[in-house]
């Protein structure tokens, strides 16, 4: 892997202003009903006046072992060898949504209008021209950092070196750790209540593809048949109406 891009998030610096969310939506034309990134909020914890509240910036973890890639039937979702980012090829995506269910971080959504799955791509279009991802560039509190984790001199590597604490939201799926590439520093995110969830699939890694892939193609075929029948029927009925 040439680069291993990842995020370091200084939890102590996030003020939940949501500049990152708006910036991401504009940069990536995210539909109004969807979001690619989040700021999760622990809510007010404790009893008045001994209170605590933690804000956890959140997006695709760009895992080293991404469960979404493992379930992708069309090969649209892949781990990019040059950047280390988990990306979706919209041309190849058939919009089946299995990856959405499989991601333990809920970091993906189905863009109904385009019929494809979408997610954080670390604003690769910006990174390629030397800019920071939109969320990082505008982060008012300086909480979101992005860069090459393989480069010991990068801002993210330096931040990890100087951190008071480092946590990750690891999840064990199919026998190995997801190895997420978001590192949370200077704050406790494991207590914030946003641990990864279990995937909504219980089919073993290899086994399900054998069952489902043919099933999907059968499904597509069937829907074609139904549509064709319906179309023909409409044609006939339409003509009938016309005759009357």
């Amino acid at each position, binding site marked *: 892997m040439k680069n291993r891009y990842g995020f370091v998030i*200084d939890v*102590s*610096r996030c*003020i*939940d*202003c*949501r*500049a990152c*969310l*708006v*910036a991401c*939506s*504009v*940069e990536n034309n995210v539909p*109004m009903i969807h*979001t690619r990134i989040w700021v999760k909020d622990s809510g*007010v914890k*404790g*009893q*008045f*006046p001994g*209170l*605590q*509240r*933690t*804000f956890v910036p959140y997006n695709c973890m760009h895992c080293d072992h991404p469960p979404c890639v493992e379930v992708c039937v069309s090969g649209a979702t892949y781990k990019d060898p040059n950047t280390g980012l988990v990306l979706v090829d919209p041309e190849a995506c058939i919009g089946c949504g299995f990856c959405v269910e499989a991601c333990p971080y809920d970091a993906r959504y189905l863009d109904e209008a385009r019929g494809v799955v979408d997610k954080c791509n670390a604003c690769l279009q910006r990174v390629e021209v030397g800019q920071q991802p*939109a969320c990082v*560039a*505008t*982060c*008012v*509190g*300086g909480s979101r950092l992005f860069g090459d984790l393989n480069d010991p001199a990068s801002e993210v590597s330096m931040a990890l070196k100087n951190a008071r604490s480092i946590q990750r939201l690891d999840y064990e799926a199919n026998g190995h750790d997801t190895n997420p590439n978001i590192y949370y520093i*200077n704050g406790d995110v494991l207590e914030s209540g946003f641990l990864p969830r279990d995937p909504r699939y219980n089919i073993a890694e290899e086994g399900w593809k054998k069952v489902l892939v043919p099933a999907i193609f059968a499904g597509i075929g069937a829907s074609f048949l139904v549509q064709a029948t319906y179309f023909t029927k409409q044609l006939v009925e339409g003509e009938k109406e016309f005759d009357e």
Partner: protein
Amino acid sequence: MAPPEITRRGFLKAGSAALGALTTSQFAFPPAAQAARTHHLDADGDGYIPTMCEMCVWRCGVLAKVEDGKVIKLEGNPDHPHSRGKLCARGQSGLMNTYDPDRVLFPLIRAGKRGEGLFRQASWDEALDVVARNMLKIKEKYGPEAMIFSSTHNLSQVQFENLLNGYGSPNYGTQRSLCFNAMVTAFSLTYGVEEPSRNYQDVQYILLTGRNMMEAISTSETGEMVDAISRGAKLVYLDPRYTKTAAKSAEWIPIRPGTDAAFLLAMIHVIVTEQLADCEFVKRYVVGCDDLPKAMENYTPTWAESITGIPAETIDRIAREYAAAGKNALAHPGWRTSNFINSFQTERAIATLNALSGNVLTPGGCLAAESPEASGVHLGKPPQPAYPRVSALRLDGVPWKYPLVPLKLGVFQELRDAILTGQPYQAHGWFISRQNPVLSLPDRQRTLQAMGKLDFIVVVDILLNDSAWFADVVLPEASYLERYDPLAVVDGKIFIRQPVIEPQGEGRSALWIYKQLGERLVLGDFFQYQDEEDYIRQQLAPLDLKLEELKLKGFLIPQIDTENPAEPVFNTPSGKIEVYSETLGDAGFSPWPTWEEPPYPKPGEFYLLTGKVAQHTQMGTQNNPLLHKYEDEPRLWIHSDPAWKRGIRTDDMVRVSSPVGEVKVKALVTEGIRPDCVYLTPGYGHLSKGLRTAYGLGASDSDLHVTYTDPISGGQALSQTFVSIKR
């Protein structure tokens, strides 16, 4: 280099050169945006154009990404000291301010009854003629003072003021008395400066009251405070509500509303009786330091405990910690500080605490005794005649009723009440520009009644806001991405707001609108500029700077000699920091910072708190679809104990009643607020159905706020309304 000489001749030359260069057609200024683009954009018409944000009043520098004549993304300008490459949520959403499907794109003339929302589209000529005819009629029949003008902090305000001063009305309403009158009046009297700048470079201890910095965001200052905390500075935060700032503070003090002054006076008491202050600094620069221990004698921490509900030992400890940090301590002046009628005293105590720490004017000190605007850069302006003499009293009572309120601050709520009472005379017209008094003034019913008494109301805005909904004529402004405004100076740099796209519909800049009206009101001499670019060229002329270069870079740094005064002099009568103020004494008020007992709610009543959210600016951005996407649902915060007693659960609809009104709103049951307080998310409860995104959301505190005015600063006491809550 010596400052360039400003001569009348040079001035005219620059002006006429500008004239020659421009093809001037009154209605054809849009090519300006095209011109801006040719500098920055590639052959495909794509690229970045520098300009300035207007989603709040902080005015961050913006780089607007343009593609095919559309703005597709906004970035913070790294060269601007307010943005430093970043924009907040509001700044990032700015393109939807321009592309809001509810934009008013053509001049509108009312076609139904006021408040029915029926308008017809008109041409600019017709709309401007109607406005001018009505304004001339009012002037002729009742005198110019019968016309009220009001506007909120913006770069074109200088030409709005030209219009009202040229017209000859003394009646000008701004947001100031609903916002920072207490701070500005107190710091003007104590330091001779309206709002001192803060320096976070070496800050170790921050005492924050009246400023929810993590939600009332000023991009650079909020970032600096986060940096300071990250570096290890201690933030002590006084607020009855557990805000996001509280979540980031080392110590949250849930103080009883209206009693901050008692807390701060007790801190002063500890510092002066224990002699913990920077004596050398205080003796040299502070008036009243010898008698201060005597004046603060009764304000012991034990006394303050009985008022604030904060333990005496906590107050004592914080006073010692604050004093120990010396010049690296900062008692933040706050911003929207007019909460109680004693808020002026709170601000006087804050000013005193800063003086005692010696943080003013010392190297590395945390408070600079100058305004953020002070920079020594003096822009030119178009020539104009003297304003007509005004003999009528101001309807807002300044200075005949409020002798210490600075003339330019005014008392807006009093102005509104004078429309209703007709005293000392009756107003007949209201010109509102970029402001929404229907939601910003307390006691909305009174505001609507006042509007009902007027013969003519005109509103300039980009949306059909709630005040425009009740107007007779609405003039559509170009959005901040579509127009020029007068220049802004920040930290010695001159910044430009320039059009990055052509205006939608027939939107026009304020500079153009005021000039057109000025000419129709026979006040053309007050608007001696051909168009927006000519206006800016005249601003640049004395500094020998070129508009083209400014447009290209977004900012210019003028060469000026700045003199460093050998000895600091404060702009007060004594030239020193006036902890003891004879001006106050002479006007019949206490010359010392002093305790004034605020009213308290009756049992079963709650303090109604207002505040800020990071996704919105006052009541002006709720219709922005991008901010709507990421805002929290507006609800009434209530502590779990009183909620439980009333059977209220989160998302239940509750009725909130005050002496002047009642609203229904969803509840949010939380531990994060004092049990004697409720907090209503501000800025919602819109009346205008022309705001299709915002209409129907939340409730407006202007429906509940009782009008209470601080007699010294003129500030509206925005947290002094008490309410009862029913399920």
